[in-house]
């Protein structure tokens, strides 16, 4: 990497632009306040994040935070599932076997070329109805002991929402997995041919080649686009509110229906999503730096 010359000082043009941006922001606020004739009522919002329960004598998460936690659960498991699925399918797409290549190709084309909303409804109304009863997910859940139930509720969703949660999770993973497949494939294909040839000459099997030579290098290259995909997963989790998963967006909409605090609720939701996605961005940035140093060291 050639070192770039980075300027440390601001030019007058920068200052002018900054002033313009701030001015635009202020004008927008003014328009909202004047043009909308909206009665702001921020004081009612905090109680929907956390509320004090006098009976249990402690603070409990309320609607919005409950939704926020559901969003975190959904994104967390969705990301893990999508990464597994994407890695597997990415390797399938580069496989020597035609069948695997076909499976990988069909999967990517199908899930990438459908709007996520359509996919979600397909899964929810058709697939989950046929599959869930067969697996009798809910009965399985109900049959667990109390302590297991608590753990499962903490990790996934309460019993009554469990089947819906699963179908949303699968949809999200399938949808995001298609993009991760392509990222993985591109990452592996970007590794120079020489690496394959040399490792092959040294007597590595294909599995060992991938494990010790190719994937470690590929992972470093695919981290930035992968990070973008993880953030997308969090954002796309909002779409599952349409099948009444009680995540952040759904809870927000419910709250708006009850209190009509449209703007306050949307702004709160925005900030909550931002807190999640920005912290993830920072974490991934750190990871990239770490890997760079480790690779160089």
């Amino acid at each position, binding site marked *: 990497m050639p070192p770039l010359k980075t300027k440390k000082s601001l030019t007058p043009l920068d200052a002018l632009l900054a002033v313009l941006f701030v001015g635009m922001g202020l004008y927008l606020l003014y328009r909202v306040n004047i*043009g*909308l*004739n*909206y*009665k702001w*009522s921020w004081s*009612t919002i905090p*109680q*929907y994040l956390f*509320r004090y*329960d006098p009976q249990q004598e402690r603070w409990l998460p*309320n*609607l919005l935070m*409950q939704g926020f936690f559901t969003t975190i659960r959904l994104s967390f498991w969705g990301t893990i599932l999508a990464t597994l699925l994407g890695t597997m399918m990415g390797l399938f797409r580069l496989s020597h076997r035609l069948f695997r290549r076909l499976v990988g190709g069909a999967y990517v084309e199908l899930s990438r070329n459908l709007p996520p909303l359509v996919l979600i409804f397909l899964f929810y*109304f058709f697939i989950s*109805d046929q599959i869930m009863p067969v697996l009798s997910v809910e009965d399985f859940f109900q049959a667990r002991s109390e302590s297991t139930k608590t753990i499962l509720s903490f990790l996934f969703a309460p019993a*009554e929402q469990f089947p*819906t949660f699963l179908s949303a999770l699968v949809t999200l993973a399938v949808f995001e997995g298609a993009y991760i497949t392509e990222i993985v494939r591109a990452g592996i294909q970007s590794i120079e041919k020489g690496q394959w040839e040399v490792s092959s000459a040294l007597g590595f099997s294909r599995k060992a080649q991938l494990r010790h030579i190719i994937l470690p290098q590929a992972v470093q290259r695919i981290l930035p686009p992968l990070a973008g995909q993880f953030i997308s997963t969090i954002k796309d989790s909002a779409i599952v*509110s*349409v*099948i*009444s998963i*009680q995540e952040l967006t*759904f809870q927000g*909409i*419910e*709250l*708006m*229906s*009850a*209190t*009509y605090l*449209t703007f306050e609720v949307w702004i709160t939701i925005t900030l909550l999503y931002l807190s999640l996605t920005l912290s993830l961005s920072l974490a991934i940035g750190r990871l990239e730096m770490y890997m760079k140093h480790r690779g160089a060291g």
Partner: protein
Amino acid sequence: MKIKRISIIQTLWITLLIIGLADVAFTGETQQQLTAESMIEQALKRGSLKVGMSTFVPWAMKDKTGKLIGFEIDVATRLAKDMGVAVQFVPTKWAGIIPSLLTGKFDVIIGGMGILPSRNLKVNFSIPYDYTGMSMVAHKNLAAGFNSLNDFNRPDVILSIRLGSTAVPAAQKFMPKAQLRYFDDEAQTYQELLNGNAHAVVGSAPKPAEWALKYPDKLFLPLAETFTKEPIGFAVRKGDFDSINYLNNWITFVRAEGWLQERKHYWFETRDWENQIQ
């Protein structure tokens, strides 16, 4: 090797026999099956009644502690109590509530659902346990001086309406010339009106009147009375008459008690519940 063929006559005989046997077995079991498959039986077996609903003030809403309250919530809770089972609410988006019922996401819709002939083709309704009517709230500047349905029945008038609600056919019937703008949620329909992008909101009483009170400087009630009268019923899946029979008689029972009227009065004519919300 000589292949033995089954003649056409034989095939026919066998087919008839199979159909006949199946028929006998079927008629014997049908009654039991129907009883066992009825929603009420299933709920009793499960020990809980799953109720599909959607947030709609004051029918159903979440209070400050995240608990569901409202007229429909009271009705569903009492119904489950009388059945001797727990009640489990499944908050669902209004636009998808019928498909969700049909695909078995819950047992019954108790959510202020208007009984419409078109809806009745897809689901079975109980007898009405409530009546509601359509009313309107209009923008003071845009709809200045409007005081009849005819005033709104013009191509330049924009009406803001919740998607999938009975306000849609009502508006189409009484104001066919007006443009309709659809939203997924009640809050959005009113925001559109407050932003001055629509002349009026069409919605079930008493909500429009409450908005006119809340924003007296911007909104007003163009009509003195509701312009429709709609029966409200419980919706269950088709082919389940045992459940309909139970629900109908339950409604008759609590109405005779006066309990239904008392709850209706509390949620729709008093404001005692307001402090539970905000």
